[in-house]
């Protein structure tokens, strides 16, 4: 295919990605160094109160010719990054007591995001592998039905899944009731450790089917000769798994780990549903919260840029792996 034709064919796709992904990212970088405020003017208004009419000073935004509020923007450099990272800003020489630094929101969010990512990973791979080995053993007729049913946690709308789990664990829900029968009393949504545990349970539950299906597909191509040879040589079931099957699955396990890290880094729905940020935050939630609750797109941009730096660092192994494969495949 000629370069000219290639460019014509990819043009619509590339245009969309440039306009709605690349350009917004660059713009986010710009926004994160800005601070805009409404151009306020003080006006005297005549107001009628129960004590008669009187002049009241009020503030209102100046508007331009089209009636839109005018915003005054300033370059503030790294101020918002410092705010998000909890580094104190302001005059360095102060007569008053030093102001306490704001909490390091980003570090807190990043910490839980990474805890979530790396505690779910071994469970996702382990349970996925056990299910794949198990399904490999059962009769063919049941396989299709089992695979279909086990897809549910992966396919279901994440916000719905998180809500369902919340309803299952809330006061007077099914799980606390069953647990109270064996003498365990936990208010799942009321404490930090249990809320975090629920988020991690959600993460494992949601990601296991993908790992299971990929590993199951991988098991179909394990060389049968090697397995039989190992059996004849007197290898136990465990030894065959350890020395024949697992080495064969290793590339898939690497692949699954990389995809999981990428996807877990974006965890969002269980955070907003299960704790509403009360005990714990993720990096995506932090940006969303600053933008929609604090209503500050500039600070949110700073959080977004830090989030992006994080994912780029996590992506490096995946990029190197893909680079080698794609180059090697040519």
């Amino acid at each position, binding site marked *: 295919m000629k370069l000219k034709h290639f460019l014509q064919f990819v043009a619509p796709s590339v245009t969309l990605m440039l306009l709605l992904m690349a350009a917004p990212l660059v713009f986010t970088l710009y926004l994160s160094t800005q601070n805009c405020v409404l151009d306020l003017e003080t006006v005297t208004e005549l107001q009628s109160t129960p004590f008669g009419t009187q002049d009241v000073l009020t503030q209102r935004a100046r508007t331009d010719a089209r009636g839109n509020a005018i915003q005054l923007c300033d370059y503030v450099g790294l101020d918002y990054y410092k705010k998000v990272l909890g580094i104190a800003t302001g005059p360095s020489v102060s007569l008053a007591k030093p102001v306490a630094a704001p909490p390091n929101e980003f570090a807190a969010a990043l910490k839980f995001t990474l805890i979530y990512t790396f505690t779910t990973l071994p469970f996702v791979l382990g349970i996925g592998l056990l299910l794949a080995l198990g399904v490999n053993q059962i009769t063919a007729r049941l396989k299709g039905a089992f695979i279909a049913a086990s897809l549910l946690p992966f396919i279901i*709308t994440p916000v719905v899944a998180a809500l369902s789990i919340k309803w299952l664990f809330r006061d007077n829900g099914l799980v606390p009731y069953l647990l109270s029968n064996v003498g365990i009393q936990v208010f799942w949504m009321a404490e930090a450790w249990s809320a975090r545990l629920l988020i991690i349970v959600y993460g494992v539950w949601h990601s296991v089917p993908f790992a299971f299906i990929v590993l199951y597909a991988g098991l179909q191509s394990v060389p049968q000769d090697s397995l039989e040879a190992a059996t004849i040589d007197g290898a136990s079931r465990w030894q065959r798994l350890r020395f024949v099957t697992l080495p064969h699955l290793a590339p898939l396990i690497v692949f699954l780990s990389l995809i999981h890290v*990428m996807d877990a880094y974006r965890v969002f729905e269980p955070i907003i549903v299960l704790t509403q940020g009360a005990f714990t935050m993720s990096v995506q939630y932090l940006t969303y919260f600053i933008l929609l609750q604090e209503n500050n797109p500039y600070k949110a941009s700073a959080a977004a840029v830090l989030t992006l730096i994080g994912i780029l660092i996590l992506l490096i192994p995946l990029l190197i792996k893909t680079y080698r494969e794609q180059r090697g495949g040519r």
Partner: protein
Amino acid sequence: MKKNITLQTVVYAGLALWLILASLPIVWTAVISFRQYIDAFSSPVKFWAPFTFENYERLWIDRAFYRNFLNTALITVCTVTISLTVGCLAGYALSRYRGSLGFWLLMVALVFRAIPHSSLLPSFFTLFDAIGIRNTYLSLILVLVAINQPFTIWMLRSFFVNIPSELDEAALVDGCSRFQAFRRVIIPVMWPGVVTTGLFSFLLAYNDFLLSSALTSTEKMTMPAAIANSISAESEALLMQGVAGAVSITIPLIILIVLFQKQIVGGLTQGAVKG
């Protein structure tokens, strides 16, 4: 090999346990969606309770959830159609072009696929407000198409690579232009790949909560964004409507699994097993 009865039992028990865990949240939600609040969340928990359609009635008729359903239908259909049209052209070109530009496009797409969506929101807010297209169906659809593109072109490319290039080259020799070769020769044989990719595009658009809840206001919201106000539900009625909504959102997905199980499983293993 001798049958190991103990092992078989353990295997079946383990698989059954996973099935229960996998389906319990939504099954229990479905059960309590047909109850009044006092029966749905009671102490002790009731396994049998009077049956009622009230929650669904309130949600679909009084709260006009059908509007959110129509929004979802409109947004997902448009997103999938545009994604596939744009993605097929790019995916085909990527599978046939040998220069290094194609490789770099794929690498950039891989980075884009990993971008957390909330990072794009501050820009979308500011830019869409500036040109006055915030809170329109079109802006949400285009955003969903764009964030879908990296995945779509990777997946479609891997399908097109498997269609022998002799097919379209023969057409080129016979005097077709590149586009005619694509339209007459490739399109008729590409449907399995397009269906699978389309399913995943559908899931992404249908399941999206973050973008849809941030970029649209109540009357234009999709179903997942619309039930979000039951997250912090203070009122019991609102909570029960959320329960009914959760079940309503899940039913089309269950139908999807039943109809397209093979394609979904095939799509999931596509990228992994090949490399």
